[in-house]
């Protein structure tokens, strides 16, 4: 949770990368909060409360072919996960246009097979990133594991594909959040028939258990 000047609530952002003495975040300027965040100058102090919640369960990633499925700024947490894995896999990364894509240089440098999708074909393949999931699942079957973060519809489609193919998968979810630690009960999502909190129970949930 980042204390952004000029807005009341903190902004929940996932960590993009952790290096020695350095933590980075990836975000898109959408409203006042992210705009103010983008205008901070070098040397200004940003108060951060965290890290909070769980992370991706990477235990299967060491045994199976890893497929990272990212939409827009959802790339952030997956980049962070990729940095922890010694054996690279596939990254399926989608956005509306090439202008909505963040850099994947870091992932490429780490040896990941990055496949880009844009809605209008301005970069990579024209179409939805979930087409890539379908192909990967077909090729690797239950021998692959999916880690996903991105728009609701993308995650829902990925979940449907994963369930149908019996593939293991995890999704990092986003919800409006106030406290970041379970006290306000604001960021509820339905998991296996009951409400769980994205901030403290998640943000990562088994993709097969999320109620869309």
């Amino acid at each position, binding site marked *: 949770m980042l204390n952004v000047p000029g807005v*009341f609530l903190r902004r929940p952002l996932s960590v993009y990368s952790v290096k020695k003495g350095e933590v980075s975040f990836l975000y898109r300027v959408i409203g006042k909060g992210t705009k103010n965040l983008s205008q901070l100058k070098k040397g200004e102090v940003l108060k951060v409360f965290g890290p909070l919640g769980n992370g991706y369960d990477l235990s299967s990633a060491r045994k199976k072919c890893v497929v990272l499925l990212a939409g827009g700024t959802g790339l952030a947490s997956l980049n962070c996960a990729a940095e922890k894995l010694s054996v690279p896999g596939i990254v399926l990364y989608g956005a509306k246009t090439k202008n909505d894509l963040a850099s994947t240089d870091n992932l490429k440098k780490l040896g990941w097979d990055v496949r880009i999708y844009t809605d209008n074909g301005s970069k990579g393949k024209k179409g939805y990133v979930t087409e890539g999931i379908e192909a990967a699942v077909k090729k690797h079957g239950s021998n692959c594991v999916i880690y996903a973060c991105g728009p609701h519809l993308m995650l829902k489609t990925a979940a449907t594909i994963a369930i149908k193919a019996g593939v293991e998968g995890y999704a990092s979810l986003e919800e*409006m959040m*106030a406290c970041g630690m379970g006290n306000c*009960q*604001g960021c509820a999502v339905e998991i296996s028939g009951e409400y769980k909190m994205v901030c403290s129970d998640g943000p990562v949930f088994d993709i097969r258990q999320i109620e869309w």
Partner: protein
Amino acid sequence: MVKKNISVKIFGIELKTPLVTASGTFGYGYESRDLADYDSIGAVVTKTITLKQKSGNPPPRLAEVEAGMLNTIGLQNVGLDRFLDEKWPKLANLSAPVFVSVAGETPEDYIKMARAVSDKCSAAAIELNLSCPNLRKQIICQNNELVSQIVKGVREATKLPVIAKISPMVSDIAALAVLCEESGAGAVSLVNTFPGMAININTRKPKLSTITGGMSGPAIKPLALRCVYAASKAVKIPVIGGGGVVTGDDAVEFILAGATLVSVGTALFKDVNAIKDIASGIEAYVKKNNIASLSAITGNLSQ
């Protein structure tokens, strides 16, 4: 370090500070043990417990607005039995006294819960949430007969001090406070959130699943202060006042308006340890103005 000169007495017990956590903003109350300074907290108010477990309202439950936020949590909680078994043992060990907040649909619900809390918890008080704006039924506070039945019924069922948490959404907040006092409440707590709404103009959808929700945060402070002033002038029982309190100066305003205790809510979302700084702020004010005790300035407005 919090000094003795901001301690207050209520219900015959001495609280280290006049600051209490507003129900629903601090979880059940024990979860922040490692992060917040409980010695700055006068009393912890639990999230509201209902007789049966409640799953709460569908998402989205939150929206940010200018200088505050809207919520529609819908009293999600584990229900009375699980509260007593799982949550109370953890609350019993806290250094701060605990006020248990309860809500129901009928006077019988409230009475049943008050009995159970009295029998099984070493709570310092029981708070009756009569003011949740996010349930399908009307706010209880808007029905005087019901308020009176609930407060009277609970008063007879327990020896614990009874706090009536009332809504600002009534035509005469002072009259409502008096009604609670006459029905046997040991204190009134106000305000709960003000109903409000926000719309996403791109999707044309309301930002909350229930369309409207409860507004809190600094934006409501002047509205809340007026309510606390009106209520405290009308009753002799202590008033627990709050609404948008973020700083020590905000808390002092409520005390000057007549509040014996000040509740801090939404500020805890931004900083779970906010009460520590607010307590320091009150202490600084007391020192600077050479005030012997907070009771000397409670409701003591210069005209």
